[in-house]
């Protein structure tokens, strides 16, 4: 089972699978060790236009449905979750503009992506994680410019992005209603990137601090209106979360693939270990979880395509997919026994990769708050 996709997307899926098999899967092992951002792999992906799947058709994107795109992103995640995260986080960085930006801003960011750039979304700060409204970055209007000051952290694509969507306080007295969203191009004086995280997993993606020191931007770079930044950020995350569920489901699928392949190959007590019903049930449980996660992702994305409310569904998809990705990755290691614990084999990486999906774009505790609020009502 998999995503139900169009014939066209199925055709593309074959190409993406071939690309990931030949250019990503094995190559990323080395970069998982070194933590280096594998530019050559991303350059090839850009050439194939894998980085611009989410760009709307009217701005030069391919015009696929979200579920079609999900099937392709999952394939990338199966090969390497960090690779898929870089691409998906670029979509995250573009969403504030697509949600609330003007025509010029939309064209600006989409053009940059089409030409091979990446986007980054800058909300989190050292003192503002789950409590995203507690950010202290400021934006002060000065004539027809804003001056931004502050420090953002844990920014996916922070060091490699061509543009950033950044939240900053325009009116401290109003709390979250004083937060605004700004579009800042890479290379703007005053914007720099700091400490690059040496992460546990998704090591082929770049995560670092984004520092703003008297960073002057044209006032026209305000996205939407002053004070609407927090709402835009929440809408952005509502959409992006489903994509993180998609990548997490891909990690789980890789775990299943590896566990089955190894189970058929590994002989103990004179037979392949997969002949043991105990391990067959393990695979069945992994499949139940993964398929359920995948269909939840599809449901959330379909609701998005239909323009229906999707906060709850996207939160469930992200929360469930990341929880089960951890479980499935752990069980895949169990199938491998001692070899699974070794870095020589591909499954320990899955557990390291999966963990972050329970944390970023709203920890799973925050997801449960979103789900509860949307279920219980106020």
């Amino acid at each position, binding site marked *: 089972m998999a995503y139900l996709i169009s014939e*066209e997307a199925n*055709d*593309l899926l074959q*190409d993406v699978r*071939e*690309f990931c098999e030949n250019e990503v899967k094995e190559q990323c092992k080395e970069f998982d060790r070194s933590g280096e951002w594998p530019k050559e792999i991303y350059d*090839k992906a850009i*050439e*194939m*236009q*894998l980085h*611009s*799947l989410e760009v709307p058709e009217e701005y030069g994107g*391919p015009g696929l449905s979200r579920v079609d795109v999900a099937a392709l992103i999952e394939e990338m995640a199966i090969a390497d979750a960090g690779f898929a995260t870089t691409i998906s986080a670029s979509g995250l960085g573009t969403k504030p503009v697509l949600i609330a930006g003007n025509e010029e801003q939309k064209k600006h960011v989409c053009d940059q992506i089409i030409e091979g750039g990446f986007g980054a979304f800058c909300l989190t700060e050292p003192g503002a994680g789950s409590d995203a409204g507690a950010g202290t970055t400021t934006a002060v209007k000065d004539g027809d410019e804003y001056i931004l000051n502050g420090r953002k952290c844990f920014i996916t694509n922070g060091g490699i992005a061509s543009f950033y969507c950044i939240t900053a306080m325009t009116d401290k007295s109003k709390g979250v209603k004083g937060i605004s969203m700004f579009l800042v191009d890479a290379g703007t004086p005053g914007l720099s990137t700091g400490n690059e995280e040496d992460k546990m997993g998704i090591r082929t993606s770049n995560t670092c601090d984004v520092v703003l020191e008297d960073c002057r931007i044209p006032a026209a770079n305000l996205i939407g209106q002053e004070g609407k930044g927090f709402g835009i950020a929440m809408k952005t995350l509502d959409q992006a979360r489903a994509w993180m569920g998609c990548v997490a489901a891909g990690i789980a699928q890789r775990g299943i693939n590896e566990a089955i392949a190894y189970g058929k190959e590994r002989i103990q007590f004179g037979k392949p270990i997969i002949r043991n019903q105990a391990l067959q049930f393990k695979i069945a449980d992994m499949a139940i979880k993964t398929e359920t996660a995948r269909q939840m992702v599809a449901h959330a994305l379909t609701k998005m395509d239909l323009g229906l409310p999707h906060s709850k569904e996207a939160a469930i998809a992200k929360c469930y997919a990341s929880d089960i990705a951890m479980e499935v990755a752990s069980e895949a290691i169990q199938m491998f026994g001692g070899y699974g614990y070794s870095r020589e084999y591909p499954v320990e990486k899955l557990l390291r990769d999966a963990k972050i999906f329970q944390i970023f774009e709203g920890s799973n505790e925050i997801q449960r708050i979103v789900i509860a609020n949307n279920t219980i009502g106020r």
Partner: protein
Amino acid sequence: MEILVCIKQVPDDSVEVHLTEEGKPDLANITPVVNAFDTYALEMAARLKEAGEGEITALCIGGEEARNSLKNCLAVGADHAYLVQEDRFDGSDSRGISHILMCAAKKIEEDTGKKFDLIFCGKEATDAALGQVGAELSEMLGTGVITNVIEVEFAEGQVCAKQETEEGYRLIETASPCVLTVTKPDYDPRYPTIKNKMAARKKPIGTIKAQDLSVLEPEKTGEGGAFVKTLKLYEPPKKEAGIKIQEETAQDSALKAVAMMADAKVF
């Protein structure tokens, strides 16, 4: 510059093929792909086109399922594609295939009013690996041929190609039109971009039937017209574990090996 690239759809060569009970290759679960050498040929043609100008036509003989391979060619550089689809051509040998390709090339030239300057083929197909078609096609078209090409330049009707040899390469020049059979160059074929693939799905693929081929000699085609008959197919024997000979001295080992070979009546 008009370029024709002849492609063949073959079973994915990374999968091991076994025989069915009837002794035929069991291809039921093997994905059909464009022959690897043909993909090199198309890539070489596409680079040549991009360096200058012109159009690439991809041509394939096969069933309905071969349209997918042609579609893939349209996504990575081909501008036009034609499928010769005719049941009675099934079972043609290399000569028959070359004859059909020659007829189809002439038919396309008649229809478009443009002559092909270069005709690219893979040096061989990865399924039967006979390596005959390129050379035979050039004979039938009455053009020159350069085999095992790894690099090509084309200017003002002159073709200059590097032909790979055991030791290095030869530089061969000839006038167009000319057939080139391509081996692995030092680059890989490109992946189709998402948009090119989507656009390729919408491009038409021309169908050519036997009756469209004005110079066809039907007696040369199909199983009946084949000079080469396949009597029986064999799977390669399974590799068995070898015997280790490890005597005290190398001389003793050699003597033992010779004695064993004598026992086995190898000589």
